[in-house]
């Protein structure tokens, strides 16, 4: 009993309300340090939470579908006997403290529940109107609550502007106005909705729900596609020499735990290009009238995982060597495939590279990863006859597809930017200049 320890959700990048989608252990399981306990899925990725201790699982405090935040108790573990004595004492005191905080949380929850139940007098289980009863815990007086009912507005969605964020009648009017506006705006863009097709008429079908990552990336992609005027610039880079150099370098360090890839070189070149053409390292502000120039250079690399597309971000690429970039890429993509990416691993990007080179294809039109303003797509490099100095020579050509936000970047700028990348890849020494 004395060495039973609570395991809590660690820092998950300040994100709160993350879904528990999988519980990987059960009561009685013997776990070791670092063995995965639960899988959490945030807006951006799913992650496995490793155990910080070894021992036997005594109780599990979460259920699938719970929303958790940093500090919530996942489970309790009876720590293994071989743990140092001192640590046990410390554990005891903290676990007593945790009990307190936990019961605090419970109390808060029950308060919410009870408050929701109280208003409907003592009536034996009154059946409520459908839009009705979510108003019990919001901060609004009776007249405002009545007005919200008349409009069918759930007060939980209304931002109060009164003193201490109290919801006023005007807030409801504004909310309704905004909603109407939204509708009419949407009407301007409105597309005929896709007709419902009964596919089962044509053969057997299975319906599976999209996973959370797909649903969320889907929404983001759709928004980017609709709101950003996209143009894609195509180009090619002659990487014959660079590929030879990469191979010779990669061969030298066989024992190393990373792969020196072409992508790492492209990443380095892009960081240089962003420094030369800073308008590619910007974002439009919310008003759409100002451009925010970033004085840092983080580059996202799209990674395919069994759960969907994720974009881990390599930080401060401009200060990393190509080897360091390659190392970081290896680390992040391993983490991504093992569901270990944390939200901080995926935020703060300035520019994204999406490589389909491993699969094939000649070119494609990537969608800008909003709020970034450009994205570089790489397809498979192939040997092509290139006319040089009066004759065709076999050269290894890497296809480049740069999509950009035309509100921010002009076509000529995009052509120059792509050229810079192409020329730098053809002769890597250029980035030293």
């Amino acid at each position, binding site marked *: 009993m004395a060495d039973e320890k609570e395991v809590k959700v660690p820092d998950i990048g300040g994100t709160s309300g993350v879904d528990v989608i999988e519980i990987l252990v059960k009561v009685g399981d013997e776990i070791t340090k670092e063995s995965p306990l639960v899988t959490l899925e945030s807006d951006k990725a799913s992650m496995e939470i490793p155990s910080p201790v070894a021992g036997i699982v005594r109780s599990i405090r979460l259920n699938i579908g719970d929303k958790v935040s940093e500090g919530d108790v996942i489970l309790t573990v009876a720590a293994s006997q071989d743990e140092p004595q001192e640590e046990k004492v410390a554990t005891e005191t903290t676990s007593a403290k945790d009990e307190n905080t936990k019961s605090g949380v419970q109390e808060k929850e029950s*308060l919410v529940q009870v408050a929701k139940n109280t208003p409907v007098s003592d009536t034996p289980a*009154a059946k409520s*109107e459908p839009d009705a009863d979510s108003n019990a815990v919001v901060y609004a*007086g009776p007249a405002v609550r009545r007005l919200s009912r008349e409009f069918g507005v759930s007060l939980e969605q209304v931002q109060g502007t009164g003193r201490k964020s109290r919801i006023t009648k005007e807030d409801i009017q504004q909310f309704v106005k905004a909603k109407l506006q939204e509708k009419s705006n949407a009407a301007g863009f409105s597309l005929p909705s896709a007709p419902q097709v009964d596919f089962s008429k044509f053969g057997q079908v299975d319906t599976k729900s999209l996973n959370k990552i797909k649903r969320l990336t889907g929404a983001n992609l759709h928004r980017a596609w609709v709101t950003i005027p996209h143009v894609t610039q195509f180009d090619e880079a002659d990487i014959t020499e660079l590929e030879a150099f990469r191979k010779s370098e990669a061969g030298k360090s066989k024992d190393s735990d990373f792969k020196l890839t072409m992508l790492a070189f492209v990443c380095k070149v892009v960081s240089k290009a962003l420094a030369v053409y800073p308008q590619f390292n910007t974002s439009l502000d919310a008003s759409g009238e100002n451009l925010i120039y970033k004085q840092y250079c983080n580059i996202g690399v799209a990674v395919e995982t069994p759960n969907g597309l994720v974009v881990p971000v390599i930080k401060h690429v401009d200060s990393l060597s190509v080897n360091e970039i390659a190392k970081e890429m290896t680390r992040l993509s391993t983490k991504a495939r093992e569901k270990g990416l944390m939200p901080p691993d995926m935020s703060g990007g300035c520019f994204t590279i999406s490589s389909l080179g491993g699969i094939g294809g000649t070119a494609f039109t990537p969608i800008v990863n909003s709020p970034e303003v450009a994205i570089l797509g790489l397809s498979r490099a192939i040997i092509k006859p290139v006319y040089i100095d009066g004759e065709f020579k076999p050269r290894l050509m890497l296809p480049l597809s740069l999509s950009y936000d035309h509100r921010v970047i002009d076509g000529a700028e995009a052509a120059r930017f792509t050229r810079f990348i192409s020329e730098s890849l053809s002769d890597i020494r250029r980035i030293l200049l």
Partner: protein
Amino acid sequence: MTKQMKTEVVVIGSGPGGYTAAFRAADLGKKVVLIERFKSLGGVCLNVGCIPSKALLHIAKVVDETHEMANLGVEFAKPKLDNKKLVTWKNSVVGKLTGGLNALAKQRKVEVVTGCAKFSGSHQVVVDTKDGEISIDFEHAIIAVGSESVNLPFIPEDKRIFSSTGALELADIKGNMLVLGGGIIGLEMATVYSALGVDVTVVEFMDQLIPGADADLVNVLKKRMSKKGVQFLLKTKVTEVEAKKDGIYVSMEGEHATDKPACFKQVLVAVGRKPNGGSIAAEKAGVEVDQRGFIQVNNQMRTNVSHIFAIGDVVGQPMLAHKAIPEGKVAAEVICGMKHYFDPKCIASVAYTDPEIAWAGLTEKEAKASNIAYEKASFPWAASGRALSMGREEGITKLLFCPESKRILGAGIVGINAGDLISETALAIEMGCDVEDLALTIHPHPTLSETIAQAAEIFEGTITDLYIPKKKK
């Protein structure tokens, strides 16, 4: 031959909820028929409940105060009580109010039909009047048939044994009396009879009087009533009541078990109220009534039959006129097409005893039972100049707050005029006030209402009328 009538809205029952619903519907342009089984409008509240009991409580209070004046230096002769005259006066108060209701109905062209109503179909009620049956076709109906006193099966029929209705007649104000039930109604009548000189004993099955209220408030009342000579037998159950010529003999079990039956001149049975949902043949209209007689409604007061509504005591606890009245308005407004809902955050309860007890929102009892986190601050009226100057320093004003948001969750007050004081806290709960809002609202001095601000100041640590050592952290 059955007389035929047709109307848009029929309201069954003319208590505070019923007449409010009828008048509101009429004001919104509906043709309304109001059915009442008794001769005068107003239901239990006006005729045999809130109003007449308050008239008698007023008399009790004045009589009590004349006794207390002696300590202050004003001595009155022993009051001469004429119970017939008292009852006449009480009835005249009731008469004024019910007469007023008739006038209000007339002005609105609400037709009043006197008789017992029963549904005969989904859109028809039949009223049994003294001039024969009247069948009334309606578009919408509002059931407001209220509740009645619960009678215990082992209690014999005898005119010395009565419910609160009988108690209001003051048939006998000498000798002793047993009040069966230590709830609000029992204690109010105990207050009246005790002040008029009756030797009152209250027997209660639970371990606390007014079991819904917090013990700290009730104890203040119990202490004062005990001092006035009222006896309390808690955790005691009446098992047998026998009416003999020389008195009513009552046997009891529990903490104050009787060896042999105790003799009382009269017995008031005040053990609760039951809904009258079973009395109107609701099933003929398809309206569901549960076993206890309650009718379920949604938060627009609609029953399972969409054009039939129900309000007041018959839809559930708390059985209070001030709950029925707004429910009646909501029902009438919904019938008239308004998108209104009944969604109060609190409904105050008041015991009009002396001192009064009132509470609104969360009680400590509920908080503990449902494991709701709260913090409280109690202001003792011994530090209130106004309470002292009235010679009534026994009161307490208690506020409960949410530990996180510091918003007020509930309030409980014991003391004179607690029933009037509680409304400020009810408004505060509805408006989501926090402790600062209450503490910073300037309350006139010297008043009892100040105690609410002062309780808030205790919570904030800004009180200067008391000295409270700082909590060690």
